[in-house]
């Protein structure tokens, strides 16, 4: 069945089920977002295209503001955020994470034995691991370290991994995002392309892709939320979200985004989300790491 008919059928389904406002939004998105023919581009061409898109949309926003997410483009939200940052809700997570970092495993070793440059090593992730043939994120590396030292792996969306990652992110503040896609291993480029494909694939009952919200409609509102640009999406994790009432990981946010569009989420730290993180973080190359963060 051609894509146009699929979209048409999804629209019909929406008409039956969705509220009026959502239908109007969907129609608006579809009208402007009908997919065109496949376009091959290098990662650097992708990054340039994204950067130019946001520069055109928000000419007054300097590039160094993008790590602040929606608060780079939402003045009212920014005032609230700046007030929250005076007493950051993620601070207890940093303290708890430091304690975890310094506490030896049962075998007497510590995280430092796995991450000799640690704890401030966030700019080294996500990275392509030629030996394992996969994208390694910081969360995955933490659990690989734990398991190598006879400890149980931590859950990836919330719980004890969050304070540890918060501490490591805090210690990495000021570093520059620098994702490398090694040219000597075609599997690395395939992982990047897979993440890019995920990003642009429409899914869920609302038939949205990541790009629908975060490229096409950046700056517009979904209910009271201003849609953030994708540049800077990966710089500030873990994040204390007021909605969650706690801090969580980037993959928890991926899960939430997918649920919002009524698509069944993928597994946190599964291949799809790791590749998505690889693609998304590459887009933020050159931007400063500023995690952990606070968001609504």
């Amino acid at each position: 069945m051609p894509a146009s008919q699929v979209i048409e059928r999804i629209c019909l389904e929406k008409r039956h089920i969705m509220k009026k406002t959502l239908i109007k939004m969907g129609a608006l998105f579809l009208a402007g977002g009908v997919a065109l023919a496949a376009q091959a581009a290098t990662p650097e061409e992708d990054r340039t295209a994204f950067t130019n898109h946001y520069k055109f949309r928000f000419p007054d926003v300097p590039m160094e503001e993008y790590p602040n997410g929606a608060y780079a483009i939402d003045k009212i939200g920014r005032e609230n955020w700046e007030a929250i940052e005076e007493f950051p809700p993620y601070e207890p997570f940093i303290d708890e994470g430091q304690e975890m970092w310094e506490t030896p495993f049962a075998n007497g070793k510590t995280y430092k034995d796995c991450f000799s440059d640690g704890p401030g090593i966030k700019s080294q992730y996500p990275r392509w691991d030629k030996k394992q043939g996969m994208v390694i994120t910081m969360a995955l590396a933490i659990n690989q370290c734990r398991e190598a030292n006879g400890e149980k792996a931590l859950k990836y969306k919330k719980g004890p991994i969050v304070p540890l990652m918060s501490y490591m992110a805090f210690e990495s503040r000021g570093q520059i995002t620098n994702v490398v896609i090694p040219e000597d291993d075609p599997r690395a480029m395939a992982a990047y392309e897979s993440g890019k494909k995920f990003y642009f694939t429409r899914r869920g009952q609302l038939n949205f892709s990541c790009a629908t919200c975060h490229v096409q409609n950046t700056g517009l509102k979904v209910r009271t939320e201003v849609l953030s640009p994708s540049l800077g999406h990966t710089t500030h994790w873990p994040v204390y979200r007021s909605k969650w009432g706690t801090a969580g990981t980037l993959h928890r946010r991926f899960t939430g985004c997918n649920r919002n569009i009524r698509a069944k989420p993928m597994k946190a730290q599964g291949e799809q989300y790791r590749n998505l993180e690889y693609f998304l973080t590459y887009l933020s190359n050159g931007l400063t790491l500023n995690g952990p963060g606070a968001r609504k």
Partner: protein
Amino acid sequence: MRTKRLLSVLLLAVTFVAGTGVTLAADAKAENPKAVKAQMEIDKADKARKKAASVESEWTTTGKLIKKAQAALKKGDYDTATRLAKQAGEQGEIAYEQGASQKELRMPSYLKY
């Protein structure tokens, strides 16, 4: 001793009657064409849901509808069960087409290279 025996007989009788009742009810459900149809639609919907999942395109709403349909069937509300299952089945089919039609990456027109 006599009371004990009497209680045992009574217990056996109750178990027998209840057991027969459950079997009869189950048989009635199985023979009811509406129940059969509802079950058939639920199976079809679940197959469609799995098909959508095979192209990583399952919707969160489909499984919920199937669960509601199963609950309605259990309660004997066969019409509701059939209606919900049909809706879930349609969702599964559309979700599959949504995923299958995007097998290749297609860049949106709004991002200029």
